[in-house]
């Protein structure tokens, strides 16, 4: 994977030497394991079922264009299992697109490649069967939700993968699946359960064909006080930690949250994706990026420390998401009071 910024040899060596010293100094004064400040907001797209915006390293006072900014949005669509492409139990599709403004030096073909690389990493991790939410079913073996997660990279100043997964996790946690109720087609309008609603001939028969008369034929949206229920594996969505490896020695030093200049100066990056659930910690996915190489023995050590960092990040994100939830409830209440 090519670097997104170009650096001269002397700049690279300046960064590498500074990081490799006994008391390492980074270009912006952070220590090796410091993150830049991360700004996060959920519910940014009102038409999406769940959305989030993440910015890593925004300079205070700057209006836009600084830091790594990513917006993620989840949209749910109905899919037929028998007639459409749908799969029983629902499916997940992730797409990442990079704004040309984020990578002004890349050609459009290189930009497509980059978005494709990011899409693969996000999609392979999140649509893995081990992370499948169970409440994407509408009618078993008939209709299910297709969950599309679209992520846009608005600007990149390094550590874009951590930002991608932070935004993805926040948007998925924010997602509400609309409540549905099965509807039965009954030729003779006998009194049945309260659940069943009679369908008249004028009912929109366009996509929801009523010809397949079986136990449950179709569904309707339940009139519910909230938009719906959260996905049932909320806690398990993974967080990503990128370990930027300085050298391929037996005891590799690494640092977190690299700027794009630092990314261009180092030989190797290790992406680790951890999922924390009550049942335990799972390494969901890992990937090495760059042209350097690493000894297998040092991997276990890196995995261990990566897990620690991921847990801290996970905990901080969890607190922030709760805070966001609270803030939005307060806002909604205030708006309700105004009416």
């Amino acid at each position: 994977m090519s670097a997104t910024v170009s650096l001269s040899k002397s700049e690279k060596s300046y960064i590498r030497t500074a990081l490799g010293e006994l008391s390492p100094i980074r270009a912006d004064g952070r220590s090796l394991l410091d993150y830049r400040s991360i700004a996060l907001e959920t519910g940014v797209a009102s038409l999406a079922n769940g959305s989030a915006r993440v910015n890593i390293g925004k300079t205070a006072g700057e209006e836009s264009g600084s830091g790594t900014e990513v917006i993620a949005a989840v949209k749910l669509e109905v899919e037929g299992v028998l007639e459409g492409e749908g799969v029983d139990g629902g499916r997940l599709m992730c797409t990442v697109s990079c704004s040309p403004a984020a990578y002004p030096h890349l050609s459009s073909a290189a930009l497509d490649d980059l978005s494709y690389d990011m899409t693969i990493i996000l999609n392979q991790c999140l649509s893995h069967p081990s992370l499948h939410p169970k409440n994407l079913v509408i009618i078993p073996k008939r209709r299910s939700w297709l969950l599309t997660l679209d992520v846009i990279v608005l600007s990149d100043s390094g550590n874009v993968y951590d930002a991608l997964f932070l935004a993805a996790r926040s948007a998925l946690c924010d997602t509400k699946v609309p409540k549905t109720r099965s509807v039965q087609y009954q030729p003779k309008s006998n009194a049945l359960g309260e659940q069943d609603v009679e369908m008249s001939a004028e009912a929109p028969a366009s996509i929801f064909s009523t010809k397949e008369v079986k136990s449950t034929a179709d569904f309707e949206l339940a009139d519910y006080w909230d938009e719906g229920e959260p996905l049932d594996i909320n806690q398990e969505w993974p967080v990503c930690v990128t370990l930027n490896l300085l050298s391929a020695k037996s005891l590799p030093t690494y640092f977190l949250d690299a700027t794009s200049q630092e990314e261009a100066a180092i030989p190797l990056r290790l992406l680790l994706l951890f999922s924390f659930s009550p049942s335990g910690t799972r390494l969901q996915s890992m990937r090495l990026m760059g042209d350097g190489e690493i000894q297998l023995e040092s991997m276990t050590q890196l995995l261990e420390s990566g897990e620690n960092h991921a847990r801290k990040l996970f905990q901080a994100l969890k607190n922030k998401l709760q805070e966001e939830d609270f803030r939005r409830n307060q806002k909604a209440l205030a708006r309700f009071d105004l009416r």
Partner: protein
Amino acid sequence: MVTFTSFPNPKDSFSYAPPKFSTEDKNDMDIDVYEDDDDGEDFDSGTKLTCPGEPITSSHAYMRGHGTFIDQETVISSVAGTIERVNKLVSVRAIRTRYNAEVGDLIVGRITEVQPRRWKVDANSRQDAVLMLSSINLPGGVQRRKLESDELQIRQFFEEGDLLVAEVQSFFADGTMSLHTRSLTYGKLRNGQLVCVPPILIRRLKSHFVSLPCNVDLILGLNGYIWVSKHINQNRRPGEEGLDAESVYSNQNEAIDAPTRMAISRVTNLIKVLASHFVPLSDVILLEAYEWAIENDVEVKDLTQTDVCEALILTVGTKG
């Protein structure tokens, strides 16, 4: 250490009253122009900021220049910027824009492409600048002429990604600028790091080579690229006696000690903070900001925090 913050609230919408441009004003302006054409600063050119869509003057009396358009006999600004007037031509110079070069400007650029006998240089301008092989100083003396072997080993001088400081020499017919480094003060950059700011924040100074007393040298490129590097001793400066010709195109950094690196990082962060609050940069302001940071004992990484930024801007930004 991970800290999550929230996005700042969008500014509360303020009531917008369009600036008055009545027929009376128009008449006044016309009279003004005819009476004192020499100092006719009748619409505050250069001091007032325009908004896109803001009426400036009548199209009967003035010609529209860059950054304006005409709607219903009124010259209207199409960008946010300052009004400039040359005789009857009214134009608006945008605040946020790419670098508009002028001959003689000192710029810092990065090589993007190596072509036969020339380099393409990214200079934050609309088009890449051109640096010809014939307009650089070849090692071995000012008098040395370009040889065929130089053309074949063009990457020995500059290669892709290299940073250089140069001067705008001239413009080609299509508006591309041509650079030169035919002075020993120009050339390849090393021992430091680059900061990018909006070009409008760099003032024209007597010298764009600034030495701060904290052992840091600055090159303030007029295109908004600033090179922050370790201080090089006066007699080892390019162009002085102690210079060896080979080191002009060297990629090797000198040994830089920790305090100097810290100072470089501090200056870099200060520039970023000042730029994010749109404070024009000069050596005086930078020095003041640096002293403020030392006096208040601010850690380098804390400089970008909101409260520290604001305290800094309050003390330094107002003095500019």
